[in-house]
């Protein structure tokens, strides 16, 4: 459950875990008995809430496994729903222990948080309606491009194509909805994301499958929390032995991507590129 009684707990813990150094964070998590992980609630198939209010998705699969291996029970994870723009503040203010919300590793973010080893590869992609398919970024001149606030897509377009007019939304839901309502010529986002979305939305195609450099997606922890960071890296290495990330892929992403996409293009096993 993402709401309700847990919150009171968190507020208490906050006071204890104040301060810059988070030495002993593993100990603290164990004492608390729950692992708080920030995930998306509206970004299927990576992180979303299903019709019964349950968190689901690729990130969520891995997050559950973390909890199981750290605390012995996968129900001991507490999912905190985050949005693209508040992932850093959530870590900084100790609202979560780990962010696993499709968090792309960038230079700016590295200044603020510590990234563990990656579990996924990503580049940007642009999806647009079949009727007016955008196959190159140059076609977007003078048109509106939809992005999600606080994502690498916004970051990339703002810095590299400052002349493009961006329509920025807080939430994924809203951004894709806006594309469907024809409010912009195209939508730029992680290619994993747009590929998945175009798959399940007939009439839309990813005309630009890779844009910019390939980045990685990794769990992030609060700056300086090396103890938790090391544990995650170790854990990812452990999981590689049973190909857990691949399993998670098959469970959550395969139904969406089908066989068009090779899993190796997307996932990173064992934290090693």
């Amino acid at each position, binding site marked *: 459950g993402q709401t309700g009684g847990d919150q009171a707990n968190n507020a208490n813990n906050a006071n204890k875990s104040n301060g810059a150094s988070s030495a002993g964070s593993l100990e603290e998590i164990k004492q608390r008995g729950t692992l708080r992980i920030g995930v998306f609630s509206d970004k299927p198939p990576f992180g979303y809430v299903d019709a019964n209010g349950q968190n689901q998705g690729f990130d969520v699969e891995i997050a559950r496994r973390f909890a199981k291996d750290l605390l012995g029970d996968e129900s001991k994870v507490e999912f905190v729903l985050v949005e693209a*723009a508040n992932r850093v*503040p959530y870590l900084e203010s100790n609202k979560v222990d780990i962010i696993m919300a499709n968090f792309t590793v960038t230079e*700016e973010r590295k*200044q603020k948080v510590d990234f563990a080893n990656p579990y996924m590869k990503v580049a940007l992609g642009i999806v647009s309606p079949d009727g007016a398919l955008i196959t190159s970024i140059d076609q977007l001149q003078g048109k509106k491009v939809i992005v999600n606030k*606080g994502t690498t897509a916004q970051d990339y377009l703002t810095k590299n194509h400052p002349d493009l007019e961006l329509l*920025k939304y*807080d939430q994924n839901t809203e951004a894709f909805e*806006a594309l469907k*309502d024809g409010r912009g010529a195209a939508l730029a986002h992680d290619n994993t994301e747009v590929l998945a979305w175009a798959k399940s939305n007939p009439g839309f195609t990813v005309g630009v499958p890779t844009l910019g450099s390939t980045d990685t997606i990794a769990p992030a922890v609060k700056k300086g929390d090396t103890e938790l960071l090391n544990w995650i890296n170790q854990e990812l290495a452990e999981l590689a032995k049973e190909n857990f990330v691949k399993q998670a892929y098959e469970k959550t992403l395969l139904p969406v991507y089908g066989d068009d996409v090779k899993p190796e293009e997307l996932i990173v096993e064992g934290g090693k590129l």
Partner: protein
Amino acid sequence: MCEQRSFAEWTEREAGMNLNWEFILQNIPLYEKAAWLTLKLAFGGTLFSLLLGLICSVIMYYRIPLLKTIMGGYIELSRNTPLLIQVYFLYFGLPKLGVTLSETTCAILGLSFLGGSYMAEALRGGMEAVSKSQIESGLSLGLSRWQLIRYVVFPQAFSFSIPALGANCIFLLKETSVLGAIAILDLMNVTKDLIGMYYQTVESLLMLVVSYLIILLPLSLFLTWLERKVRYAEFGP
């Protein structure tokens, strides 16, 4: 000396108070643009609200049947629902019925829908504050119904309404802050953007507050002055 340094350290480390001035200067144009947009939207919204409110208030004052019921329903709907939901509905809901309106249209429509009822109540309050004896002395001078409205009721009603109308202007200006939710690049949205991209939280928030102060403080002072002046006119020195 030593203490000073430790305080500086504290602010830097604990409070993150060493502001990134470069970042602030860099982004001033962004805020300036957003401030103009905010003003433009508020102005448009206020204008249409006034128009809508005027029509509404006259209908309510004269108790025109049917129209009065419709306007009454509108006023209740508009006053008892949040603007955020109103614009969400206009922006994301209506396209499902085939009506797709642009961000700006939705914003101004939403502001007017909300503001219309507030303006109507303000104007109607003013009209009803014109005393019955004023109307009767107008009548006993032989003024026709229209002349009565034109020369006696309206000038007074308007000055009675000024404080409420002014408060509504500020209210609408402040309400524009939720329009970021439908991708309007207003002050709020720009701030959220900068926080999300560069994580310069304190700087961005500071600029946001300063922008609102620059816009709203003079307006609020002006309205206080105007209100006092009007009240002076009403009751004398």
